[in-house]
């Protein structure tokens, strides 16, 4: 594949940075995909509007950060998105739970368009970025390379986020209801569990996570109304590869896709756009349930 020694050297020298970039991107994908997969697992909802959660979080983060500060932004974003998600749930999406996925895709696709266009009108489609507090500027010495401080903190933050969500689902009583509800909603109700409330909480949580990631990732990836959709499709790629409804599948899938994209840029920059679709196509054709998903999920 590689013929000239020169390019091998070039690739090797770029490797650490590329791997780290892939890790960061992968962690961003994990953050977004997590909400998407949990919502699918619990509510059997295919949510094409999930990207909208990300982008609303990004813009709320943007506005609040510019006026108050980064930490306020990171708190306001998930709260705003959670409220939006609850409103969306009650107002519209509730009746689409457990319906055929085609209807779900269509309605959430419609919501995504509406949100994207509304934001475009509000923010007149210019790309924006904002500044972060001083201590997050610059770069850190990681031993084998220098890497931007903000990204390192971002990565640590996502890891904590994943662990926190894991703890909530696996170790709390509420999480127990959620997990049981994923497997058998009716039995949970027969035991007196409030599945409907748990559903709304999960939906809001999924959105909030995506919103938080949106706000936190903006300094890295910049923000424009299309970003929602730009992250939406890869996040579906992630959960398909990892397995729809699987928590660790989203983590594994996210990291894989992030690294895959990043490493492919070393070989050919445009190829990095297409490689994730090729990967998804392979998974869909060979093992549609994904790496960590359950089989018998193929039918709709």
């Amino acid at each position, binding site marked *: 594949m590689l013929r000239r020694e020169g390019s091998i050297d070039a690739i090797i020298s770029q490797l650490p940075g590329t791997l780290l970039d892939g890790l960061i991107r992968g962690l961003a994908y994990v953050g977004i995909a997590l909400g998407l997969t949990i919502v699918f697992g619990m509510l059997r909802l295919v949510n094409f509007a999930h990207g909208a959660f990300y982008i609303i979080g990004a813009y709320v983060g943007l506005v609040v950060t510019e006026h108050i500060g980064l930490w306020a932004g990171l708190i306001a974003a998930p709260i705003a998105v959670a409220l939006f998600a609850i409103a969306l749930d009650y107002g519209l999406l509730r009746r689409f739970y457990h319906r055929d996925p085609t209807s779900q895709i269509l309605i959430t696709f419609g919501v995504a368009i509406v949100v994207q266009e509304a934001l475009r009108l509000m923010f007149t489609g210019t790309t924006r970025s904002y500044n972060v507090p001083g201590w997050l500027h610059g770069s850190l010495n990681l031993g084998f390379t220098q890497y931007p401080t903000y990204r390192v903190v971002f990565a640590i933050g996502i890891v904590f986020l994943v662990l926190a969500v894991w703890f909530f689902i696996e170790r709390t009583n509420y999480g127990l209801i959620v997990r049981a509800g994923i*497997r*058998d909603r009716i039995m949970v109700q*027969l035991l*007196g569990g409030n599945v409907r409330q748990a559903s709304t909480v999960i939906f809001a949580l999924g959105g909030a996570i995506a919103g938080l990631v949106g706000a936190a990732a903006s300094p890295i990836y910049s923000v424009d109304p299309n970003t929602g959709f730009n992250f939406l499709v890869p996040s579906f790629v992630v959960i398909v590869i990892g397995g729809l409804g699987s928590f660790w599948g989203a983590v594994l899938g996210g990291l894989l896709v992030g690294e895959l994209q990043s490493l492919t840029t070393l070989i050919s920059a445009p190829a990095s756009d297409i490689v994730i679709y090729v990967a998804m196509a392979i998974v869909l054709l060979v093992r549609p349930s994904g790496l960590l998903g359950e089989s018998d999920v193929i039918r709709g």
Partner: protein
Amino acid sequence: MTSAATMAANQNETLLELENVNTFYGDSHILKNLSLRVKRAETVALLGRNGMGKTTALKTIVGWVPPRSGKVLFDGADIAGREMMENARAGLSLVPEDRRIFTNLSVAENLRLAQVTAPRAGWSLTDVYARFPRLEERARNKGDEISGGEKQMLAIARALVQGSKLILLDEPTEGLAPLIVREVESIIRDIKSQGTTILLVEQNFYSALAVADRCYIVDQGTIRYEGTPDELRGNTEVLSRYLHV
């Protein structure tokens, strides 16, 4: 006809009453003016061949399949069409025919869930493990790693943990080896002795007769017979006509 005073006394005695309940699945009329009564601390068996509406009756009581008409009175209140969750919290438990153990949770987690969602205290985990030692052995195993008999024990244990007033059992001995069937019958007798009211649906009517105080026979969606086990045993005509025994 009973006098008003007697009826009033009966009211307090009655924990569950179905009055002319009609339930449909889509356009199929399953329960046709079904009426029955269960008194406090009684164990009542609902018998009949497959497909006659026994499971549907339980589902109607618990709110899983709301009736189109008729009354479902639980502890004096009409709960017809009320949500499953509310009914469960009011002290009404259904142990479904297919057990419905959460296969992604461990045995201990299955029990803990039942504790968490119950508004009142029932059996403690210690009590459960004392009565069902095999569940304690399996506490860490996931729901799909235990045997059919253990699943049935767990399903019943969940209802006990919830401290319910009325436990509905749908075919508790179905598909179990004879030895386990005995054990289930013994558990039912224990539950009965603690004063809990039981309504059970059974295909295996010998098992049902072993524990029941009173029996109903359901055929084509209505009650065709009511009597005690002794009365039923003696009635060969009813036995052959409705139960094909």
